[in-house]
Each structure stands twice: as C-alpha cells, then as structure tokens.
C-alpha cells in the first residue's frame, strides 16, 4: 500500500493511492474543474463598485477576494453558471458571453 500526496495524470497505476483514497486536505484546489464551462463571466474592474454581492453566491469559490477587494475570476474553478452575473446590480461590472474555446 502506498500513500502519496497529490495526484496528477502522469502517475502510473502503482504510483497512486489504493482505492482512490485522498491523504491530504484541500486537494480540490489543484484540480482544473473549469473545463466544463460553456458560458463565461467577464470582470470589468472599472465598472465594479466592490459591493461584495457576487463572491458569496459563487458556488465554486471562483471569485477571489483580497484586501476587501474582489479580483478577477479564477477560471480553473468557475463553471460558468451565471449566478454572479445575475446578482451583480451594476451594469457592465460583469458581462456574460459564450466562451470561445
């Protein structure tokens, strides 16, 4: 039995934990789950009033906040659900478009 920290798709069958066990916390941070997205929100800092209504409603914690300011989206985890776009009261702070892949 082996226990390794962190997994990646280059590891061979005998280099990963048995049964898919995870032996550390917070590993979801490392996984790119943003690749399902079809629609994408865009952040326009100049129009943003920093009202802080958007970041708590994001189901994927994809809106980072630092020093009481929201930053640009974390597209590694954003699923393109549009909740932030819907909740934002200020025209043009978040725009909504089809993602060009």
């Amino acid at each position, binding site marked *: *039995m082996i226990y390794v920290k962190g997994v990646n798709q280059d590891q061979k069958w*005998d280099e990963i934990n*048995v*049964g*898919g*066990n995870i032996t550390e916390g917070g590993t979801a941070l490392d996984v790119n789950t943003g690749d399902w997205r079809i629609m994408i929100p865009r952040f326009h800092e100049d129009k943003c009033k920093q009202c802080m209504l958007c970041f708590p409603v994001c189901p994927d914690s994809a809106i980072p906040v630092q020093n009481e300011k929201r930053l640009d989206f974390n597209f590694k985890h954003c699923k393109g659900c549009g909740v932030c776009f819907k909740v934002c009261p200020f025209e043009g702070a978040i725009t909504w478009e089809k993602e060009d892949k």
Partner: protein
Amino acid sequence: MGIRRLLSGNEATATAMKQINPDVVAAYPITPSTEVVHYFSQYVADGEVDTEFVAVESEHSAMSACIGASAAGGRTATVTSACGLALMWELLYVASGQRLPMTLAVINRALSGPININNDHSDSMGARDSGWIQLYSENNQEAYDNYVMSWRISEHKDVLLPVMVCQDGFITSHAVENIELIEDEKVKEFVGEFKPERHLIDGGPLSVGPYDTPHFYFEHQYQRAQAMKRAKQVILDVSKEFAAMTGRGYGLFEEYKMADAERVIVVLNSSAGTAKVAADQLRAKGEKVGVLKLRVFRPFPHAEVAKALSNAKAVAVMDKCDSFNGMGGPVFVDVRTACYDLATRPQIVNYIYGLGGRDVTVDNFLYVYEKLTEIINSGTNTDDIYRHVGVRGVN
C-alpha cells in the same frame, strides 16, 4: 492440542467470530444464516466479546456499516444468505473497490424466485465478480478453519480485499459435526491485530470514497485486479502457517484420488463429500476416478486447475447454480477456460445439480461418472456440454 466440540456450521462460524472478537459486526438476520447473528449477539449481550454490534434494518445497511467501520480502522464482520447478499450487491463492489478488509460469512442459499430458502450457490456465485475473495467449505471444520484464515488474507498488505467464507445452508450450517477448535489464545495470536496503515480515526487526513474521474478510475481497477492475483500466494502462505499450527493443510483446491484419475468430478462445498463417496465406491472396483474440490474460487487458480486436470480424459464440472446463459454454470465456464491452453485437453462437460435444496446423492455422482465413461467411449467430442442431473424428466 485443539478442543473437540460438537458444533453446527453456524455455531462454528459464530465461535470463530467470538475468538477473533471483531471491533464491529453489523448484520441482519436471514435464513439460514440467522443463527450466526443470534449466537453472536448473545456473546455481545453476555460480555464475552467487546464488539460493537450494529443491529441494522437491512443487508444494504449492514454492508454500508461494515464499509464505514473498516474504513475507520475496525476489524469488521458480517453474515448473510441469498437475498440478503443480493441486497448488499451495490456495496460489495464499494467494499472491494475501496480495498477494505472484512469477512462475510455466506451461508449459501438459493435466490428466489419462486421463493426458496434451501441450499444452492446462486447467491455467492452471482457475486463472484464483485472483487471479493471467495473460499468454499466442504464441512463444518473447513468453515471454521477458512473463517480463521480469512482475516490474515483479507488484511494482508498485498491484498486488502474483503473475503467471503462460504458454506452450504442447512447442510453444513445446521448439521452438527464433531470438529476441532483452536484454543482462543492461539486464534488471537494467529490472526494478530488489525493495523491498517491509514484509517479515518487517526493517522493523518484521509478521505475514503471520493469521486474517481476517468483519469484515475481505470488505474484503481487495475490495482484491484493485481491485488486479486497476488491473493493466491497470500492464501497459500497463510494456509501453510495454519497447517503448522493445526496440522490441517489447505491448498487452493483438494485433489482426491487424482493421481491416475481418467474421469474427474470438479465440485465445491458440501457435495464434495458425497462425490468422494461415489469415487471410493468406483475405486473399490478398480475404476480410475477422482474428485477435484475447489476451495478458492476467487482468485480462480486457473493454471493450477489446468495442470491438475491435464491427465484426465473426461471431466464433469458440477455447478449448484445455473448461469442461464445457454452454455453452462459459473464453475464450469472458468474450469473449461482454464484448460484451453493445455496441449491435450480432457473433454469437459457441465452438470447443474442440487438447485434449491434438491437432495444430492451418491447415485447422482455415480450417474455422472457413468456419463463420463460414455463420453470417453464415444471417441468423439461431445457438443452436449450443458447438462443437468436430478431433474425429473431429464434423467
């Protein structure tokens, strides 16, 4: 020196459970395995074990509780039969896929319908591809011995797979036989302590059972397949150690009068005893017949079985379970496949027998040996491979 006791197969299993004193037993009663739970819960009530006994509301919950208990680092056991095993089905795959050691005593009983509570192997045979090791037992002694050995196999670091210890419902589970028990302290010493490297209670962070994406699932299945292959050697090693302690030797299968046997019956569980009586009667007349009794069905010892059958002329594989596949039962399919690579193959036919508690007699086996003679004498390969014995109107 062991302790001679008169015990039913169920009581022998419960006694072994008591001696092992698992951390958790979660079980739901179902005929004919109910007695095991009954005896064991009495041991719990009397303070003879310090097991946490979880009285669940179904077998689905029983297996779920066992999975949780094993993941938490507890030595875990359960017992069931027939539809109870069927209700565990979904979780059987979870237990083996999460690589959680535990032992499940299967007291073999037919699956309905029409409803039947008597013995055949349709329950455990249906679960043969669920990633569990399967050991089969001819009599009460073997049921007890296999049970004691199962823990060492299941918990071995090269294996980490759950084990089913099977015996025939009513036939061995309720018949009382004189058996030899091992002293409590010797069982404890043999089984040792369960010390998983990681478990949920301590030993650092651990998540069990997360979603396994297509990038990793296949590798985990490959790991499980390798563990099942490695289990064969572990079973042999544990059995060797067991023989040193008790004088009772076990292999992957037992070869009974096989040395020069031209006609062979392959069988598992209690009917092996009946087949041996038939073989003895024919041997007394100078006929070259033998019995190959499978003990380990998962992992299937294909190379060893093929070698053991390589000198036979005709083989009948007995299945107390019909696969309803139009071709033959599960033991037959595996035995016949195993022999494919032999340079000279015996003719191999299947006999489905004893379904739903139908009596299995010495005459049934004499009939099968007779049919093997007919196959040999015909000089041609028979395409009549999928046969039944003991059905009115058939034979």
